């Protein structure tokens, strides 16, 4: 559907991976400076990668996961996270829940509760109904 033609072919996967690696380094330095929300914003930037390549999606998830797990103060995070990130964040929360990993699920559920409070059920619908831009 919309944007489907924007998908790049697998040849570009290497370029996307390089970009994600660069993003990962930036996030590590932001986390060292104790800026977890900035790190999460950076992680969500340019997500999901415009590709069907599962390798890229996994690489991006690892980066987002790293930033997600570093969030300690969920309320504080939402006070500085703009609503434009809500839909994409919700998608990654569901990806996190699908891993079945205990600490990841705990963290995702904590954020999910607060996010639903802010963004409503519509946000959940938007992340589940979109079968094209999967994360």
């Amino acid at each position: 559907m919309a944007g489907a033609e924007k998908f790049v072919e697998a040849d570009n996967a290497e370029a996307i991976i390089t970009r994600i690696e660069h993003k990962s380094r930036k996030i590590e330095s932001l986390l060292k400076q104790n800026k977890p929300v900035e790190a999460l914003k950076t992680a969500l930037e340019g997500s999901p990668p415009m590709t069907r390549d599962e390798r890229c999606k996994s690489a991006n998830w690892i980066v987002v996961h790293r930033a997600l797990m570093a969030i300690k103060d969920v309320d504080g995070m939402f006070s500085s996270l703009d609503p434009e990130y809500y839909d994409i964040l919700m998608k990654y929360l569901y990806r996190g829940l699908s891993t079945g990993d205990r600490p990841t699920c705990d963290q995702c559920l904590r954020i999910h509760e607060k996010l639903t409070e802010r963004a409503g059920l519509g946000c959940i619908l938007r992340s589940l109904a979109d079968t094209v831009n999967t994360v």
Partner: protein
Amino acid sequence: MAAVAVHQFAQCITCHAWSPDRSMVAFCPNNNEVHIYKLLEDKWEKVHVLQKHDQIVSGIDWSRRSNRIVTVSHDRNSYVWNQEGPEWVPTLVILRLNRAALCVQWSPKENKFAVGSGAKTVCICYYEQENNWWVSKLIRKKHDSSVTSVAWHPNNILLATTSTDGKCRVFSTFIKGVDTRESKSGSSSDSKFGEQIVQLDLSYSWAFGVKWSPSGNTLSYVGHNSMVYFVDDVGPSPLAQNVAFRNLPLRDVLFVSEKMVIGVGFDCNPMVFAADESGIWSFVRFLGEKKASSSSSKYGSQFSEAFGKLYGQSKHGLSNDTVEPSRAQGVVHENCINCIVPLTKEGFRTKRFSTSGLDGKVVIWDLENQDLSDHF
């Protein structure tokens, strides 16, 4: 309160339509029949039952000037009903479909009607005088999935459709001998039958409920991802806006003026959307809400309401009486609203409209004294 009358007609209503003088309402009570009720001495009485379809009636439209009812059904057929004396006489329209018909609408001039179907096609039907027969012409191979809604442009030529492939499309339905070419109306009427004018690629999930604004300048439709879309300059370079909202998705929309749209759907409460001076659309408020408790987030109550529904709280009597329009939370419908029909029009503005849904109610809403006049 915006809801001025609530009628519990059945356990579930798939669609409804009003007679030209608004004294009668036709609806399908989720079976193969169409019931017509009339207001007699302050009580709604069943006056006709139209029985001809074999399966659920999915669409009804009652033409304003010619007083004809068109019905479509999952049985893949359509009937045009003419009133002859006290009887409604059906004429079969063979749609040539191999899947269910899903929606129907008369064109503004009432010389054609459009049927959307599960067969990925749209039928444009028109009357052939010489054969005394309704002919169905198909628009094929344009939709990738079921056609969920159809809407006629005021010019009687352009037809907008939404589909479960997520797209909204606009077609020319010019039929030789039925339509006349008007030199002044420009490029839109020069197209051949079935030609696609534009395909709007905005939604990633099912699209439902499309409508044109009264002037035909703006198009609105909804996606199943809790989004509503507004499109200006429908043509080669359309201008589109997406409005995401925090509630459950909509099923249908209605323009009550050029700048205001009512959306109905799974949240059981009509939503008001309006455009400001610069033409930016946004959500204003729920219609069935008291003004005091405006847009404060009420996440908890939303959930408990949903749970209440799950556990069968909504056992409401089948009394067929006008229920007092003063329900505590102002939530009049107890289930998904899937149909919205205009009632009284003043020029380009709709002051009253009715909604029906899976809870079997037909609710009449009035926009007077709603503090919405700045948007009209």
